[in-house]
């Protein structure tokens, strides 16, 4: 019996580490949803949307309201769509004024917008967190060998991956996406081919913001629905974006995975350092690769 003990202890530890890594990847997945939207809006319009966290919060609040009327899965579809509509309005009336101005002004604008959204949510819903629980169909755990994992988290992971895959498909496999990528490279030439980029920029803003809203719905049961939730997740999303490089699709994906895994492993060894770990990771990346993992050099914003 004594002979087997070390092996069994080792295997149990291995499972814990794996669980934390998976947790980390999951966290990375929903950071990715937000970071991807940020990156898309920036790549095409050149605006860093500091209000992105606000749309994430709006998505969560909408989930709470809509679930009462149409169930969780209904809210899962409807909430991002409604948030996307907000994105259309914001792009049309605010962002568009700032495409050609000093990037600092658009930073200030979106920062103010974030403030307004957070306070607005506080006015409408109050400062205390709204109760919102995991829908009954998705509760419980999944057992795979020695491995126990909450079903809802796997659901989030799946939906997030599906959303990222769908975004990838849209950007890389559709004509719409081709126009967007062409517009990122050379908006003048796109214009000379008779294509007006304005509606595409609106659509991308809606898509980016909608992804944030989706993340809000998914995380509402776990993170707790309160007005300041946007600010909390936004800094993490920015860390991902800075590490991956603003405007780089694959860089952001790699960075999200990296941030998530590092966070997971750090939490395994010392739980209170989890959050700090990603900031330290960013510091290290910046020292070694100032432009981010795969970042493109966009002079205007350096």
């Amino acid at each position, binding site marked *: 019996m004594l002979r087997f003990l070390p092996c069994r202890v080792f295997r149990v530890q291995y499972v814990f580490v794996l669980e934390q890594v998976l947790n980390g990847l999951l966290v990375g997945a929903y950071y990715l949803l937000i970071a991807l939207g940020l990156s898309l809006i920036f790549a095409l319009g050149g605006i*860093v949307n500091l209000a992105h966290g606000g749309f994430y919060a709006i998505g969560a609040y909408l989930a709470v309201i809509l679930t009462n009327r149409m169930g969780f899965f209904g809210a899962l579809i409807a909430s991002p769509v409604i948030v996307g509509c907000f994105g259309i309005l914001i792009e049309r009336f*605010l962002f568009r*004024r700032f495409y050609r101005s000093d*990037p*600092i*002004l658009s*930073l*200030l*604008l979106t*920062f*103010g*917008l*974030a*403030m*307004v959204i957070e*306070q*607005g949510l*506080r*006015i409408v819903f109050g400062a205390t967190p709204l109760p919102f629980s995991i829908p009954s169909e998705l509760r419980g755990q999944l057992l795979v060998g020695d491995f126990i994992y909450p079903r809802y988290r796997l659901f989030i992971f799946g939906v997030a991956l599906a959303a990222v895959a769908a975004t990838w498909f849209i950007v890389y496999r559709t*004509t719409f996406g*081709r*126009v967007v*990528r*062409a517009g990122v*490279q*050379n908006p*003048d*030439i*796109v*214009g*000379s*081919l*008779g*294509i*007006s*980029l304005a509606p595409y920029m609106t659509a991308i803003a809606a898509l980016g913001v909608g992804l944030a809203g989706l993340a809000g719905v998914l995380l509402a049961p776990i993170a707790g629905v309160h007005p*300041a939730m946007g*600010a909390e997740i936004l*800094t993490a999303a*920015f*860390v991902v*974006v*800075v590490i991956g490089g*603003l405007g780089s699709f694959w860089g952001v994906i790699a960075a999200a995975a990296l941030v998530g895994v590092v966070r997971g492993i750090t939490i395994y060894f010392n739980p*209170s350092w989890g*959050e*700090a770990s990603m*900031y330290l990771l*960013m*510091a290290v990346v*910046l*020292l070694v690769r*100032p432009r981010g993992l795969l970042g493109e050099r966009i002079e*205007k*914003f*350096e």
Partner: protein
Amino acid sequence: MLNNRSPLIIVAVSLVALPFALDLVGLPLRSSIDVVAFAVACMGLNILVGNTGLVSFGHGAWFGLGAYAAALSQRYWFPGSITLPALFAIVFVAVSAVLSGALILRRRGVYFSLLTLALTALLFAISYRWTEFTGGESGLGSVTRATVLGVDLERDGNYYWVVAGVAMGVCFLLWRFHRSPVGSVLVAIRENEQRARFIGYPTNRYKLIGFVLSAAIVSVAGTLSVFNHRFASAEPLSVAFSGELIAMVVIGGMRSFLGPALGALFFILFREFLSMWTPHWLFYFGLLFIGFVVFSPTGLVGVGERLLAPIRKREITAAAMAGRKTADVLSLPPSLLRANENDLLALSARNLQKSFGGIHAVHDFDLSVRDKTLHALIGPNGAGKTTAFNVLSGLYAPDAGSVELEGISIAGLKPEDITRAGVGRSFQITNLFVGLSVEENIRLAIQARSHMRYATWRSTASLTDIQAETAELIRYLGLAGIETAEASSLSYGGQRVLDMGLALATQPRILLLDEPLAGLAVAERERIAKLIKAISSEIPILLVEHDIDRVFRIADHVTVMNDGAVLVDGSADDARNNDKVRAIYIGSGTAAVAMQPRAEFARSDQLLAVDRINTYYGKSHILNDVSFDVRKHEIIALLGRNGAGKSTLLKSLVGIARPEAGSIRLLDQETVGLPSAVIARRGIGYVPQGRGLFAGMTVADNLVLGRLKRTTGDGIHWSDERIVAIFPRLAERWDTPADYLSGGEQQMVAVARALAGNVQVLLLDEPFEGLSPVVTQELFEVFDRLRQEIALIIVDHHLDLALGLSDRTVVLERGAVTWNGVSTLLKDDLDLRRKVLWL
């Protein structure tokens, strides 16, 4: 506002009046102290935001850290004291700022702001969780105020006057700082960081100084605040608080000295009063903030200035150039000369190689510039002169080869180091500190050489030697009388002179001038050319120019480049009389493919009518009353030397560049002012220089995009089958990413993409560039056949091809049409060609 002591007087008066004023509206003394503390914090933050142009979303961190440092040091190390913890807090924050600044300032602009955001979030997370040390959520209480010099500071009344005194001291310090050399450099960095480096400032060092000073001042505010409330918490470290600080600065006015303080006052009043009516005052404050960003980015001070403008008498510096007191060309101020003791070559480049991607822009490049000579670098479009020039001046590092300045290698140095080594460089596209005055522009360049350039206490006005040198140089440049005019208000010619002046002010061993005469009127060209010639008798000059007549008249030595390498290197006469040089400019008249007579299809009905269009790039007047027309089935060749405006003309036709005046009518419909997408849909197809294919997308993708929005209209629409029939080579390349194709194939795709949609007139910008003879022949035949369907305008420097293909030719020189006639005249008559295109 900083020119006199009025800000200090305003601050002193306000500090005295504040507690009484707030008392009148029912606010306690503690609120007055809050106002002063926030005002100090905002003014500290504004060193970065308003002065240097660096937006920090994390400055609350220094406020909170200062507070914690004071509270904790009082608790553990200096119980019962107030001054020691305060001093400790400042030192602690300053050290932290140095460390974090060194890391964060590696990035600029948006990335810098995001990093400051992350910094404060990190510090907030740590202080919130580290409960044993910082008290976490409940914070640190029992902070006491001591008795200093017999005055008991526990009384709020006494404490206020201490706070006011500290604030006055900080204001005085800031007043001196903003007027000092370091302060002026921070403003220069905000206006144009690249140029600041090219006049010799190591900008990162200056930014670090500003960052640390700013953090230290904000920490002072945090210290004042922690002793005010006797309580330290993690709240100032939150992102929300940093956001409030930024909002105060923006709403107050970030471009004014006292604006941020005004913003702090506004914030406190707003908070106190609105919170009486509604708990959601921060929401309305946020709306106000957005309103200011959108409608008045200069804040309350900006609004105030606009309101006061009719009342205040403002000195209007008249249309700048009118105020000039020009003198004849004087001799160069001796302060700008450096001795070249060893009689070495001023600049020598050996075997330079530079490639971008797979293109060898410059190869086997040798150049020697002798002291006190005027050396010109010329060559046709695509010859590589700009790249060579950029390598020599330090903008790019060479892949191989050496660049030596009086025997010392300068290859690959940073801009500020190359400038200090002695390379003074002017820029083709205006690269000045446009928001600053003429005098300040020059003074900054001279200050970069001075040993006072790191001074933070003395004012720049008191540095009389720098002022004298500045005045001297301004007189020399012929800009006397308009020193106080803003650089942006000068005429284009004036700006080019100022640009040259900046390079000159760095006391260069060699002056590198990038197209100094481009875009200038004839009289100005004369004057500046004379100036350049005069300077070159004391300081060697290397210049790149397209105005070849003038170059041959003034240059001592000429290097002609073609296809990335040196073609001819000798005196001006050598180059002028050299057959090879002439050939690259006017063609040799022997291209076989162009010799055969072409069938004419031109009709008389007008397709495109261009009437006196004028296009500008910034202030540069590129197109000058250009008029011509294009008839159906006609091919027009658009010729002229570089810088003549040919590409700009094509861009004006397709709407990428917008003409300021004039009219362009396509099929009798006006197109000036329409967005390029609309113009393209009406029937103008465009194949840009460099092809403009979309990287990462296949040939098929590019064609799909070409066709997407142009399926309607009366012009031709090439189907995929037609495209493959005309360009069979593309069939096997259909699914290859466009950036992997050869040059010729790319050109075919670019043409096909343009023709895939509605085209009545096709614009081609340098279609034969970089192509092999076989592909050139193929394309030539395609264009020739195209005339049966549409009209074409073709710009190309392969003159024989362009003349052989076209029915008529329009020649542009410096933005104006100088010749318009039948192409065969130019094709067959080499003398006429020489007259029209050469000199």
